[in-house]
């Protein structure tokens, strides 16, 4: 039996990844409306550059890469606009220090949202979406060791914010 024109368009797969693209986008933007705008831009880009996708590679990682590249290029553009408008150095959102030095029991989502972008995305990709370290490294276009260290720092910071002592189960002290 010959398959009648059974060549599926691989772009039809994009729709199946939308829930995860949105979840990843929300973890980057931290709010659903901006995440939807981000996903919208990423879908258009993915559609138009689909010829660059190699079918033997991981479509999810490829789509996630587009989401994050779009996120960071928007962020850079916005920062340039802010710097231009205010003539003050823009706040560095990829700074490693996290937001505030508060050590108190925080709601998980709130604590998570204070982490630097790079730690949030590494934690979401590996800790939540189930990507391997290698896939996450490919998605973020960095070395595997970089992903591992971002995850470790992110976990440590979360543990502090949530009132645990990382690597230790003592209660929180205010040292």
């Amino acid at each position, binding site marked *: 039996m010959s398959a009648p024109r059974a060549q599926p368009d691989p772009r039809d797969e994009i729709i199946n990844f939308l*829930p995860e693209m949105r979840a990843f986008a929300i973890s980057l933007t931290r709010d659903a409306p901006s995440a939807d705008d981000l996903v*919208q831009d990423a879908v258009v880009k993915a*559609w138009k550059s689909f010829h660059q996708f190699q079918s033997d590679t991981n479509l999810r990682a490829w789509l996630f890469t587009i989401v994050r590249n779009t996120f960071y290029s928007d962020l850079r553009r916005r920062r340039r606009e802010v710097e231009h408008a205010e003539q003050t150095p823009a706040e560095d959102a990829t700074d490693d220090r996290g937001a505030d030095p508060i050590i108190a029991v925080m709601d998980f989502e709130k604590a*998570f949202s204070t982490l630097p972008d790079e730690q949030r995305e590494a934690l979401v990709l590996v*800790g*939540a979406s189930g990507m391997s370290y290698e896939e996450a490294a490919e998605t973020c276009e960095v070395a595997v060791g970089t992903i591992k260290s971002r995850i470790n720092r992110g976990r440590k910071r979360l*543990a502090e914010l*949530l009132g645990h002592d990382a690597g230790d189960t003592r209660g929180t002290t205010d040292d």
Partner: protein
Amino acid sequence: MTRDPKKSDVERDIDDNLRKVYREMVEQEVPDRFRDLLDKLRQSEQNGDPEAKE
């Protein structure tokens, strides 16, 4: 679910929370605008809109 015995309770707690938050986000209904967008992209390509191909 695999449990890594090397993980501390804190790490396990963090990972459980991460997965929970992510699952909740994935389970949200995808807005219609995305289906519309994909339809539009396909249509504009079929109509030979050069914008949609490049």
